[in-house]
């Protein structure tokens, strides 16, 4: 049964590493630019000429 203890031990270590990495990332401000992508996806990139009734105007893009 030693293989069992080994495997569970290894996996828990991996889980812990993941957790610590995420905690470190959050605390040390690594997620500073985690806003732009959520807004960027709202724009449709349709050329201005055949613009549809998309509410968010593409003019604010560039």
């Amino acid at each position, binding site marked *: 049964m030693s293989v069992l203890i080994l*495997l569970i031990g290894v996996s828990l270590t991996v889980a812990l590493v993941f957790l610590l990495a*995420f905690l470190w*990332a959050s605390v040390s401000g*690594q*997620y500073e*630019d985690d806003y732009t992508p959520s807004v960027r*996806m709202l724009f*449709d990139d349709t050329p201005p000429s055949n613009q549809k009734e998309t509410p968010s105007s593409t003019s604010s893009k560039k």
Partner: protein
Amino acid sequence: MSTTTVSTADRPPIEPSHQLETFRYDNTIVRLFLIATTVWGIIGMLVGLIAALQLVYPALSFELPFLTFGRIRPLHTNAVIFAFVGNGIFAGVYYSLQRLCKTRMFSDTLSRINFWGWQLIILSAVLTLPLGITTSKEYAELEWPIDIAITVLWVVFGWNMFGTILKRRERHLYVAIWFYIATFVTVAVLHIVNSFELPIALFKSYSWYAGVQDALVQWWYGHNAVAFFLTTPYLGLMYYFVPKAANRPVYSYRLSIIHFWALIFIYIWAGPHHLLYNTLPNWAQSLGVVFSIMLIAPSWGGMLNGLLTLRGAWDRVREDAVLKFMVVAITCYGMATFEGPMLSLKNVNGIAHFTDWIVAHVHVGGLGWNGFLTFGMLYYLIPRLYQTKLHSRKLANTHFWLGTMGIIFYALPMYWAGFTQSLMWKEFTQEGLLAYPNFLETVEQIRPMYMLRAGGGALYIIGALIMAYNLIKTAYSGTFQREETAQAMPLTKKYQSPKNEHWHRKLFEHRPVLLLVASLVVILIGGLVELIPTFLVKSNVPTISSVQPYTPLELQGRDLYIREGCNNCHSQMIRPFRSETERYGEYAKAGEFVYDHPFLWGSKRTGPDLLRVGGKYPDSWHYHHMYDPESMSPGSIMPPYPWLLEDDLDASNTADKINAMRTLGVPYEPGYEDQALADLNKQSAEIVARLKESGVEVSSEKEIIALIAYLQRLGTDIQVKD
């Protein structure tokens, strides 16, 4: 605007050579998948309704083999999962991936192969499952040639997806794309591992694994099929279509990153909660429970993120049918993902497992989360693709209310039926005897609930039909835009990392291949830790010397049991509860199943457990019971199987089957395959003789003889104390 400054700071200064590029999105492929999801959705739901009605009126099988519940039920599950939801995934991915990556799909040819190949696979399922061509493993019933076709098609999909990602014009990979990638990788691994089988003919194979190990692999697959086919791709769709429909950014992008990683890391471990109190090693059961409870956090992270995206837009939810469907979908996701971990607590599972509670649970997820999100997506996309407005908002609202009422009228009766039946199974009299020793009493009690459930399902389907009408009218009122023009800047050749970029983006977001490998590693660690000890640690499956391989006739009978899908209604797993050992006999031992390729534990007791049915009734009882169940069990809802008494058993493949089993490790002696047919004939002659004593005249070639041989063998290897 702060967003503008951030996004430009993100990129190196634009060089003069970088011109704005114009390209076109492929909408035709999206439309094809949208039509497919609608058509297959309605067909799959109708098949489900037939199955639901058969549980109230068993005569609805019309004594036709291909209409019996055991064959119809896998058709229903496969149709709604892989045809309805599957096409829904492809539709959403093909639409959103192009726009998120600011590029056309990698290859139009691969897109077309993906579409038509997937429809062919569905068609082959529609043809084979009613014919009884099945592996018996839930949601993986399709036989080996179709399994291979699925693998090839999945690779085509992945190829097309990664090709698109690689030629994208947007450096950052939006969160939805990660969910698609995780879906692709995990489903591929799950499908391949669970489909290891040894073919013995074009449409017959045996699972590579046996008994407990087969069960563990199957539910590792089964649970993660729910996770990575019904959940992660739909979370990806949620992260695209909910912000789009509400026209506001997702509540917390950071939360989406965290809950994505947490979700894929934890989900893969939770499979054993499908096997609580089964003969799975206890440590594996506990591991499954712990990770199932942990799943609440990432699941609710996604649910809250979806709902809170609508903050400040709730007035629009009242008006907009698209948002309405999405809100109910996300709410159902939240309910189902809270209920799931609760159901995986051993004491709750002891009550719920094998009952209709589980059926209610999966339909809150299926009808609510998958169904309603698909409907929301359809109402969002069809008017846009056809450049028009939805034909009728009133009809969409009618659909919404019919669907919502349908879910309620489906789920509540099933919860009621689950509680009722479980309580009746476990009820003892003051003298310590089972209060309801006859299983049929517990079935009779919940039959009205089955009727109500069919009503709820019918409401849901009527809603879907109204939607189909509404969408067709919408399509006719507009013109379809095959190609949609878009413009974006090309990616600069060299990527220059800004100084303060955080590790997550640096590592993963710019390198899809690395992300692919990383998620593969993450999911494999979880799966392997659960699987390897079971294979390696011998004490996990104690061998029992009295357990012998099946005789050739029993083996043939077992394959008939699989063909007729008996495992859809009958378990072969007696849990170590007094209420079960009193009713069915000695509880199941892992060592009893070592020759079971595949395992046939079942997951639902619409009828009683059959693990120790061997020797319980005379041969003639089974003969009459299979011909007309009501003659032996008045009030039974089991359909009749008259063809078993009329059709001859095809015993020509007996030697092949023995050889295959030996390859898989069943200890038939060398050369036994030559003797197998003679043994088979000898045993069937004995059964025919016994039947004759009871006044039943039947030829020894009939299929019923093999099935009786198998049923009478079940559970008899272990001596049960009186």
